């Protein structure tokens, strides 16, 4: 049974989260302040953190930064702040995903599952990706679609690998470029865009309305494998 710690100052939200997560068989721990949050995180060693950014005793981003100094535990930000700069700041501080309030409950649960999956597998690669009718074996570099074998370039495999390490979570553009092309190509979003377009043409049932390789406008991409 996974433990989830929510650092959130609003009691109503905590109550809803508790009902929701305990209903899905998670153990729920809560903290009202950043300080309490860090203590709970150190003592309980939760498998996942839900962190609000506006806390009474400080900024949630600072809390994320402090936790990241000693733990790789997945962190999902839960905030009413919708401005892009804040999302980017939180992701840069080490958060794995960002859910804006008001959130839809199925969406939140899906994100929680995705984050936990990554944690369980750790840095190991997902050998097998399934996207609708398409199956991709990242270890063997083999892909199959509804019409038979798919030919992906080595670069496309590396993009998929990079996304698959964070399946269901946001991967920043910069991070993708750094992992696939190398740090010297940072800022070359054009290559990434072209590669993503080609990938979608190969694996998406309707490339113009992508369902698996989703763009998070202004932030990056998210892989939604089944």
């Amino acid at each position, binding site marked *: 049974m996974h433990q989830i710690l929510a650092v959130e100052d609003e009691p109503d939200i905590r109550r809803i989260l508790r009902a929701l997560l305990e209903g899905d068989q998670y153990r729920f721990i809560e903290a009202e302040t950043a300080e309490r949050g860090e203590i709970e995180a150190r003592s309980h060693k939760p498998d996942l953190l839900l962190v609000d950014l506006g806390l009474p005793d400080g900024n949630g981003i600072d809390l994320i930064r402090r936790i990241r100094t000693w733990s790789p535990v997945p962190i999902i930000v839960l905030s009413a702040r919708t401005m892009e700069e804040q999302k980017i700041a939180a992701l840069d501080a080490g958060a794995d995903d960002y859910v804006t309030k008001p959130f839809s409950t199925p969406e939140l649960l899906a994100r929680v599952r995705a984050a936990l999956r990554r944690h369980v597998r750790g840095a190991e690669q997902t050998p097998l990706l399934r996207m609708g009718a398409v199956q991709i074996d990242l270890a063997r570099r083999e892909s199959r679609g509804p019409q038979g074998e798919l030919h992906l370039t080595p670069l496309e495999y590396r993009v998929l690998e990079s996304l698959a390490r964070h399946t269901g979570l946001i991967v920043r553009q910069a991070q993708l470029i750094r992992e696939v092309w190398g740090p010297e190509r940072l800022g070359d*979003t*054009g290559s990434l*865009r072209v590669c993503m377009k080609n990938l979608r043409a190969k694996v998406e049932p309707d490339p*113009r309305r*992508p369902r698996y390789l*989703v*763009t998070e*406008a*202004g932030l990056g991409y998210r892989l939604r494998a089944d």
Partner: protein
Amino acid sequence: MRDPPEKLRAAHENLRAAHGMNDHRPDPDQLLAHVQAEEARAKRGRLRIFFGASAGVGKTYGMLEAAHSARAATNADVVVGYVEPHGRVETERLLEGLERLPTLAVKYRGIVRYEFDLDAALARRPGILLVDELAHSNVVGGDPPPRHPKRWQDIEELLEAGMTVWTTVNVQHLESLNDLVAQITGIRQRETLPDRVFDEADEIELIDLPPDDLLARLHAGKVYVADEVATAVERFFRTPNLMALRELALRRVADRVEAAARALTATRGRGRLAGDRVLVAIGPDEQAEQLVRAGKRIADALDAGWTVVYVETPALLRLSETERDRRIDLLRLAESLGAETVTLDGPSAAATLIEYAQTRNATRVIVGSPKRSGWRSWLQSSTPVQLVQHARDFDVITIAVPDQATPRRSPSSSAGVNGTPTPIRWDRYAWAVFTTAVCTAIAFVLYPRFELSSLVMLYLLGVTIAGLRLGRGPSLLTSLLNVAAVDFFFVPPRYTFAVADVQYLVTFAVMLIIALVIANLMASIRQQTRVAGARERRTALLYAMSRELAATRGLSSLARVAVNHLAEVFQCKAAILLPDATGKLQYPGDPRLDVSFRRADLAVAQWVVDHGHRAGLGSDTLAAAPGLYLPLGDERQRLGVLAVLPENQRRVLLPEQRHLLETFAGQIGIAIERARLAEAAEAASLDAERESLRNTLLASISHDLRTPLAVMAGAGSTLADRGATLDEQTRVSLARSIETKAREMSDLVSNVLDLMRFESGQVVLRTDWEALDDLVGTALNSVEQRLAQHYVDLRLPADLPAVLVDAKLIVQVFANLFNNIGKYTPAGTHVAVTAAADGKFVRVMVDDNGPGLPPGDPARLFDKFQRGDEEGAIVGVGLGLAICQAIIKAHGGEIEAHRRTPGARFEFTLPASGSAT
């Protein structure tokens, strides 16, 4: 007229008497002007002048004595700003016990001079400041450079700052008496004082000393004589000279007393004769300077306004540049004596003068006596004679100027203009010869069939053309050559210059005279056309600038337009310096401005804007500066400074160029004021718009927020109170409605917040190159639910160029458009997204075949809180399209709504690269 002033005064007295009998009430305007002048005077410091006939009468001594008694009587705060003791024991003794300002050491050609320190005086602000020698010239080329070239200008500034100043001056320094003094003594005084300063002084104290006493003092060594005068000392200090000077001084003071009495009468009910105006017509000749001074004296005697007119006739245009430059000095002299100056263009001086005199209602026109003699005076009457013949409404006064050369003042060196005579155009003479050759060639062809008289006509035509195209000299050459050609080629015996028949000599004479007259006339017309052309060009330039200024918005673009025009017209570097919020002038961000220009002169510009007077090149203040600084705007509102650094100084020194520059400055001032007002109006309307937005928002929120809140409250309480008794399906549907309404409210709130951020300018675009299909796909995913029942067709071409946009915001645009389609069109509606490259943009069209747009102007849809269906059941304040518009505009694009049959089209542009991705 032998003695014009006598006659004039008599005439004036008569008129005044007649006037006085008719009307004793003061003119209200005049009274108002008087009151205003009095008010201005109250703020100004008082000027007291100790006035003497010559050096050595004891002006400085008198001033210091008065200072001591003022201190003793009223305990006045007396400070000596500058007194030249000249080593006189009496003066030295009087200086003891008085506070003295330190003098300013000025380096000039290796020598240190000690000058009056204006800034020290302004800083000290004494009750009474003593400054000797009002007519003194400051060391213009010295280091540090003086602010003004003349001491009287320093004192003007002190007076304007509200300080009381006592000073001294001699009669020979007065500008209008300069000539007379030179005639009496044979010594021309270089340091002159405008009469205006003397006349506006609050008190004149005459220090009088009989000539014999003065000579006695001189011999006793009690009079200091400046070095430059020392050689002439014997010539100067003679009893007849001193008596004449004393008389001049006494008369000048008496005139002043009389003027003061007259002013008093005027306020009590006797207006001066209105509309008296004296015109002084001058040319570039020797007598002009004397004419100007005579004009000043006559205008003063008449108590009338006066104008100095220079008529530029075609004949004068032929003068060398150096001679024409004298006009600059003359008109400046006139202005310094208080005259208005005008330069007119016209074919004849007399006709132009008469026309101008009539438009200005001049009562007297002053001209120099004619100098024309010999055959020319017989052929053509001189300007004064023509004036007298045609004068209707004005008197003509001719001033006889003595022939003996009075020592003339050297032209002002500050002008620094090097005149060069117009070069002779030899090519035109070649053309003149060619014209004769062509005439001769044609005449050769015609000779066998036509008479000689017809051929002469042909040659006259040649002269006419030459006169029109080549100017005076060449056309005269053509006239002569033509006569020679006719003689040589056609008059028998042919091919010799001999003439067989005497009657041909008459032909030649008449032909030559006609040719010369035609050549002259044609050349005049040509010159006239050129003058008119120049005038027209000036008007056109001004018009061009005004028109462009009128079409320009924003202060910085106005300044740029104005500077471009000025640079073109005056061949100068120009800058418009505008004050910031605190009134301090700022440099414009124009890199074309010369660096030294930028560094040196902000202080001068600040002085100009603070005092409202121009400064720099060719003006009274800092005349040695390379640039000219004109204030923009008027007394009420000083808008900024126009700085001009001419490449050729003549461009701004010529009076008509300077007037043109001032006209330009006036236009620019008006344009800037207009821009300021527009800015203020815009700010006000922006405030009003914000206010109305706030109101609409409140009204809208009360509807759009309360409805879902009511649903939520109702459903929540029903669930809480009756949950146990309700069946599963009802419970779920109530809970769902709470969720839906909450979501709608959330959308509304984020829309309002987004729009507020756009309105307040907080949104910073984070642009990157993006593929359009990616953005549309993302938007469609976010509105999947809403468009679940619609058919969406994406028809984006594969070779569409990448767009440079903020991805998040453009996704929002698509999402808002899709949301609207979801809200306002029924299920089953077809939606098509198409796009095409369009120059530097990508044009995107979102079409549907739903019920179409509401009636009215489609552009109104993008206003805030507009929606297709007023007060309808569909929630979502009409902000979606307003946000779309804000986003698209922030990207530099346009968004429009169009009607289709059936359905609607939303169309917008996004900035794009040229190449496909």
